[in-house]
């Protein structure tokens, strides 16, 4: 298994977990209570920290391995980044439009939505790009 493929697979798992955790956690707690209590803030911070630490550890562990990054790897990464960027933009756009449609009449939204958009965008971008990389490697195999 190629080191780049392995890295993408681990990144998919880490940021996929983070993405779905944030979504589920937010759905359960709700926008009003989200981040309002200390315990919710600590849990969210711990999960985000765990994902980030996992990512850094994975980068450090695969750093010393013999790494060949050839033209096929470059092409796969380029394609994954391009499609990933497009999908992330679409995700943010649809999310914001949905919020606008839902809260248009009220004129204000809970500030926790902004926190959620920020972290979800970050997690989604890493998740979708690495997932696409894994998919493109799998297709070529």
């Amino acid at each position: 298994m190629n080191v780049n493929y392995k890295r993408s697979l681990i990144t998919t798992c880490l940021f996929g977990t983070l993405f779905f955790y944030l979504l589920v956690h937010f759905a359960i707690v709700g926008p009003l209570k989200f981040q309002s209590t200390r315990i919710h803030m600590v849990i969210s911070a711990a999960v985000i920290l765990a994902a980030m630490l996992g990512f850094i550890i994975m980068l450090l562990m695969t750093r010393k391995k013999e790494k060949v990054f050839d033209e096929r790897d470059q092409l796969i990464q380029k394609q994954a980044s391009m499609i990933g960027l497009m999908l992330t933009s679409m995700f943010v756009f649809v999310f914001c439009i949905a919020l606008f449609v839902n809260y248009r009449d009220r004129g204000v939204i809970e500030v926790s939505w902004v926190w959620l958009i920020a972290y979800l965008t970050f997690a989604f971008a890493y998740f979708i790009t690495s997932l696409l990389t894994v998919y493109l490697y799998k297709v070529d195999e």
Partner: protein
Amino acid sequence: MNSLPKTLTNNIKLLRIKLNLTQEDLAKKTNCSRQTINAIEKNKYSPSLLLAFKISYILQSDINEVFGGE
């Protein structure tokens, strides 16, 4: 007049076996990964002209012998 080729084919596996080379050997000599050589052999990835020339050189063959179209 022959019709234009639609897909790229290659004889890498045949020529490689003739020279007693593994995919790993060919990958190391051309400075790419074994997975890339495997993908080229299976016609799932079309290499750049530079990599195609490198492969032909290592396989001691003309580029037209290694790569073709059908």
